[in-house]
């Protein structure tokens, strides 16, 4: 009985560690998705603003410099492997949107994995409760017999 409880305890701890790992991964994904959404919003705003308009470009965290929007029909996008390529404005938007979709799909997979782990933990807790109740009943039966 004691060994069984220890085993269940260890299994629950292992599942919780896995859940924590998955949650951290989801956190990282959310940060990337937020950055990509910000890029989309910025690109759309600049396009709406139009060429020749002045914007403030952040330089570090507390400073900004004025710059004029010159060309918005081309966007340089990172394509991985430390390489960035010039894409048409619409293509760049689609590329970023596709990246967001892929990340959201992956996020869903991770969430499902977390739900499955929680279900496993619940099963283990139920198993532990049942073992404990059986043990209790057995003890009571033994006590009655002894009396």
């Amino acid at each position, binding site marked *: 009985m004691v060994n069984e409880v220890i085993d269940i305890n260890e299994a629950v701890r292992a599942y919780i560690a896995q859940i924590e790992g998955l949650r951290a991964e989801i956190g990282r994904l959310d940060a990337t998705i937020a950055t990509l959404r910000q890029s989309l919003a910025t690109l759309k705003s600049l396009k709406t603003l139009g060429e020749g308009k002045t914007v403030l470009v952040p330089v570090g965290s507390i400073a900004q410099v004025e710059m004029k929007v010159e060309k918005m029909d081309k966007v340089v996008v990172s394509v991985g*492997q430390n390489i*960035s390529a*010039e894409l048409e404005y619409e293509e760049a938007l689609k*590329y970023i949107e596709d990246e967001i979709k892929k990340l959201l799909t992956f996020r869903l997979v991770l969430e499902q994995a977390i739900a499955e782990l929680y279900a496993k933990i619940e099963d283990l807790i139920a198993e532990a409760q049942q073992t404990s109740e059986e043990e209790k009943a057995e003890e009571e039966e033994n006590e009655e017999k002894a009396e």
Partner: protein
Amino acid sequence: MELPPQIQAQLMQLQQLQQQLQMILMQKQSVETELKECKKALEELEKSSSDEVYKLVGGLFVKRKKEDVKKELEEKVETLELRVKTLEKQEEKLQSRLKELQEKIQKMIPTAQ
């Protein structure tokens, strides 16, 4: 009950093989991820109408000819594919050695009892 030293030695070897296999699988996964990234980068480069692309060198973007970068990426893909194949062969060998050893240990256990 203590296991005979011969079985203990075989079990230790089995554990080492399992660790080696784990390492190979991790390496394979990492190479496969890089390969996927390289192929995706190549795919995206095709979409760009410009003849020039930018490569991040240190903290700076350096303008490079698209064809040169494509060639570099294609060579990298070739190298990575070769590495994946090598790792797959190593994985197969280790799997068969593991299987052999497991069978050997299983045969030894009844005689030890």
